[in-house]
């Protein structure tokens, strides 16, 4: 019983670690632009499809090269979404931007299906050896990679936001948009770069997920947007540390619910948690702040 509990906790943390960068990217866009990007997951999915396509054409490409392709393609797809859905509505309606991003979601899924028509596409596996066994617990090497990546992404993002000139511009723009513009900061350019950064983070996370599963489907976009949205909401909308905490909670709750209640009730428990949070503490999702 205790061993199960520990094993579930370990698996949950690993799953949470793989959600964390996805949630960070989603929360970064939401916190800076104050707009929900439903095409966030699909753009990452398209990046992974580009890597899968490259893998099929050039089987000699290593994991590093494929990860670079996934990241670059995700950034390009993210930039496309920003130009079409968010740049035109910078001063306008947040709902218009969200609806436009929903329309592009459908388009990105179509592109992926046209690129590789089979429903399930093979993806190179991250690791093909045996999982590690430590004190009776099973630890997958992929889980270690996810945890290390999540930690690295958090550290890198913190360094960018709190140590760089670009980070200063991002935080100034969120804190007081008019004063930032009067200081010479260009909102359109900063928003675009924030999108590119969030897409790069998402592309890395998505590649890891695809390589862990050793396959991808067009549904990956839906899956990524949902995990990012759920973790961001659990963490209080728009807060970056909150998004990471939300991702870990999401992973843990899913792992335990699946073990004790079965896979059918797993997602139900997650939504119940979100519902209880909203019902008990409606102010949980207050005005978003970036830090």
């Amino acid at each position, binding site marked *: 019983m205790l061993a199960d509990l520990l094993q579930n906790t370990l698996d949950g943390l690993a799953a949470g670690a793989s959600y964390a960068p996805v949630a960070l990217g989603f929360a970064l866009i939401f916190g800076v632009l104050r707009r929900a990007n439903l095409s966030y997951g699909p753009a990452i999915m398209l990046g992974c499809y580009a890597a899968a396509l490259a893998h099929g054409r050039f089987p000699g490409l290593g994991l590093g090269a494929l990860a670079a392709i996934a990241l670059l393609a995700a950034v390009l797809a993210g930039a496309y979404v920003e130009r079409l859905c968010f740049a035109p509505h910078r001063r306008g309606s947040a709902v218009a931007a969200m609806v436009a991003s929903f329309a592009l979601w459908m388009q990105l899924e179509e592109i992926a299906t046209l690129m590789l028509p089979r429903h399930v596409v093979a993806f190179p596996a991250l690791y093909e050896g045996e999982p590690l066994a430590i004190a009776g617990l099973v630890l997958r090497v992929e889980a270690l990679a996810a945890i290390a990546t999540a930690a690295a992404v958090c550290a890198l993002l913190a360094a960018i936001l709190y140590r760089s000139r670009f980070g200063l511009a991002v935080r100034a723009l969120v*804190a*007081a948009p008019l*004063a930032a*513009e009067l*200081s*010479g900061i260009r909102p359109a350019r900063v928003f675009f770069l924030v999108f590119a950064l969030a897409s790069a983070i998402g592309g890395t996370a998505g590649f890891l997920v695809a390589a862990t599963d050793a396959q991808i489907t067009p549904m990956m976009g839906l899956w990524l947007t949902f995990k990012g949205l759920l973790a961001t909401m659990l963490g209080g909308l728009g807060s970056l540390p909150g998004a990471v905490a939300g991702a870990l909670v999401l992973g843990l709750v899913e792992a335990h619910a699946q073990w004790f209640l079965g896979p059918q009730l797993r997602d139900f428990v997650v939504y119940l948690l979100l519902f209880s949070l909203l019902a008990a503490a409606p102010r949980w999702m207050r005005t978003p702040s970036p830090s």
Partner: protein
Amino acid sequence: MSAMLEVRDLVTAYGKIEALRGVSLEVQAGSITCLLGPNGAGKTTLMMTIAGILRPRAGSVRFAGREIARRPPHEIVGAGVALVPENRLVFPGMSVRENLYAGAYLRRDGEIEADLERLFERFPRLRERAGQDAGTLSGGEQQMLAVARSLMSRPKLLLMDEPSLGLAPLVVEEIFRIVADLHRDGTTIFLVEQNAHMALRVAHHFYLIEQGRITFSGDPGSLAEDEVIRRAYLGSARR
């Protein structure tokens, strides 16, 4: 003296409502010029148009002989015009020092640290609070920070929108002392004020704006102060 800033027939509108209905004025290099007028007369609209936040529908704004109307804000800051906005608008959640670095955002020269040091000498209270969250400063300190942040861009012309708004009388005195100091050190200042009494004490030249039009221009003393104050607060229509 020559005109550093020349505004000609400027029209700025929000939808169908014209907030500026053909404003013309000049700010002489090395002067303190003041714009007085009642609420809703278009003072803030004029400042925001000069700074490039609002696009004028017609007219021109020339700074040091160069047309800057319809240019984006970052180009106007880069050209040497900085606006201290109404209500101060510091960056809360960022330290005082980070606020000042943000003011130097466009600069690539190596003298940013030296300028920071000079500003800390001018505003010792900001040095004491350099690591503190700007959102926790008092109103007067926030106003000082907003002015210092604008100075970090090394402006030739400093625009100030209602710097005394909502501040205690002693703090207002201090803000106007800073305005006089900045002027003495060579900065040209164009100031919007509701506090006509204080403004007339420092200004070399002033304009009255009412309902989007300049209705009077002169030196302090060319119109009885109580008359200026009445029109600055109430507008001539309601006299």
